[in-house]
């Protein structure tokens, strides 16, 4: 087990505890190893209906006509849900924290903005029947040009795929989120070295072994119980009730035991369909993603394109950093407008740079909407920042540990977003890691502390 270094921050960490700091065994481990842990899908309901979605085959298209007759004829199909069945079909998940507007349909109406977008939901006695019927839904499309590249999406003249008339999220009238401190341009002119590089990631799937799912069960008194693997019980309850026009008191979410999440179970996607199905049929309805849907239709970690331009003094101090971030939100907002602000707030990383400019765009493209994932807004930024630091160290012939220590933020420094640093410990983790591999540091670097500048 990883050892705690007791000789670092000794005074601050002093204290005597009885339960804190103990390697208490995981409380649910016994039920995990015996198979007794109950996940949402381990609740078995008689008379259950299975929901399976018929989805868009195109990245971007108008829907001319939907023919349900062949699907309806499949044995075991109980009901087919279309957008007309959804009381408030347009929603946005961050409405609850005031990031609007409503911009995503629960079920597609006259158009689809990504391949895999849900169009109609089949409810059938068996999953196999529901899948068969979903495959028999005939949709007539008029294909439209797809915008799949973020750089293209923000070019003037590129057709807007979103009804608000642009391909970016609008922050209080601005087409991107902006942070600055100091005078970056002036500092670039003073800098001895300029480093400018671009970094790119591709979408990444959460891949929990348990796919996203929920079972809605009608209860006496017009209530519905949602057995769900949501990561946020009330967030799911509130958003589902808003979409369904249901008084909040009529929904109850039961969950809390989830087979891995990593951010993928924060969107409220399966629950409204399951409850709507239960409302319209009076039967329990299960809607869970297949593995293929989890991989291609559930929201991934956004692909990001990040360009970092650094102005560096001859002695290795980074005196200016300009960061341009393009977050590929895919077709709808989900949590990406929030994640884009978080990405901007993270820059310029754990370093004190006096002159910083950050511009971050939340860009819409015709792909699966991206959303939260472990390290949301930060993971890809860290990749860009730390490869950039490696480049600077090599180019200047500096030790990569020492270049980081020299620029590391310390208590009392001002971050780009103008909050004062407290509780910093970057210096100490670098020192500890160097020590771990026997990497020699200069006496000045060994003497550094996050608590004060000497």
């Amino acid at each position, binding site marked *: 087990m990883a050892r705690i270094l007791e000789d670092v921050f000794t005074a601050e960490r002093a204290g005597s505890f009885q339960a804190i700091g103990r390697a208490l*065994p*995981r409380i*649910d*481990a*016994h*039920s*995990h*190893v*015996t*198979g*007794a*842990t*109950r*996940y949402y*899908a*381990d609740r*078995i309901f008689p008379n259950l209906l299975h929901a399976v979605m018929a989805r868009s085959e195109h990245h971007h298209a108008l829907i001319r006509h939907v023919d349900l007759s062949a699907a309806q004829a499949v044995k075991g199909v109980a009901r087919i849900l279309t957008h007309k069945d959804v009381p408030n079909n347009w929603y946005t998940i961050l409405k609850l924290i005031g990031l609007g507007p409503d911009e995503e349909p629960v079920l597609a109406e006259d158009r689809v903005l990504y391949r895999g977008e849900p169009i109609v939901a089949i409810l059938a006695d*068996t999953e*196999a029947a529901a899948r068969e019927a979903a495959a028999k839904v005939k949709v007539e499309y008029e294909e439209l040009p797809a915008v799949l590249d973020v750089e293209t999406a923000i070019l003037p003249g590129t057709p807007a795929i979103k009804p608000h008339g642009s391909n970016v999220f609008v922050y209080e009238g601005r087409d991107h989120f902006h942070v600055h401190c100091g005078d970056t341009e002036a500092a670039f002119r003073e800098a001895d070295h300029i480093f400018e590089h671009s970094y790119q990631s591709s979408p990444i799937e*959460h*891949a*929990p*072994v*348990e*796919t996203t799912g929920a079972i809605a069960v009608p209860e006496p008194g017009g209530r519905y119980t949602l057995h769900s693997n949501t990561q946020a019980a009330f967030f799911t309850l509130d958003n589902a009730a808003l979409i369904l026009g249901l008084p909040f008191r009529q929904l109850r979410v039961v969950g809390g035991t*989830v*087979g*891995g999440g*990593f951010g993928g179970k924060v969107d409220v996607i399966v629950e409204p369909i399951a409850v709507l199905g239960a409302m319209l049929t009076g039967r329990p309805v299960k809607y869970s993603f*297949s*593995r*293929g849907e989890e991989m291609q239709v559930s929201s991934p970690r956004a692909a990001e394109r990040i360009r970092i331009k650094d102005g560096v003094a001859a002695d290795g101090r980074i005196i200016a950093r300009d960061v341009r971030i393009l977050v590929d939100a895919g077709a709808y907002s989900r949590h990406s407008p929030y994640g884009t602000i978080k990405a901007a707030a993270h820059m310029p990383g754990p370093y004190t740079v006096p002159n910083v400019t950050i511009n971050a765009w939340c860009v819409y493209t015709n792909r699966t909407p991206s959303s939260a994932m472990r390290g949301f807004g930060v993971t890809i930024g860290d990749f860009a920042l730390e490869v950039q630091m490696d480049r600077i160290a090599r180019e200047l012939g500096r030790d990569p540990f020492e270049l980081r220590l020299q620029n590391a933020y310390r208590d009392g420094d001002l971050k780009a977003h103008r909050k004062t640093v407290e509780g910093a410990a970057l210096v100490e983790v670098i020192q500890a890691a160097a020590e771990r591999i026997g990497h020699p540091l200069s006496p000045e670097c060994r003497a550094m502390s996050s608590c004060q500048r000497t």
Partner: protein
Amino acid sequence: MKSSYVSFTLNGEEKELLIEPGRRLVDVLREQCGATGTKNGCGQGSCGACTVHIDGVAMLSCLLPAELVDGSEIVTIEGVVRNRVLHVLQEAFLAQAATQCGFCTAGMIMAAKALLDCDPSPSRQAVIEALSGNVCRCTGYEPIIAAVLAAAATLAKRPAAAAAA
């Protein structure tokens, strides 16, 4: 096609069930037998969460039509505990902290048990190969490998009669 009766023993108990044609064993176990410890993680044979033993062999219950197990002896995670005593593998999973969300755990234990049942002192490489069809997204595998090796070490210390129990 009509439903048919299929007989098997599940964790030592005789079962005779009316089964729809083509129904997957994982669904029969979970929904008709209440053995929900076996998980359905992918339905395509690519994650291993549904691993059970059919006549002592680890198999993926999401790929098996239940008609095919007629006459077989099936063991699921619920059958690994004997006389309310945890199997050494289960004890080792606890001791090595080899579970996090727990969703892959049953499949992991069934895959590992199939290995130990025929090779009670496997090499690390043999353990890795036995687990290579099972996906875990939380633990990074190392604690699971350590648990299987620790269980093997415990088995090696036991008298042969106890190990067979």
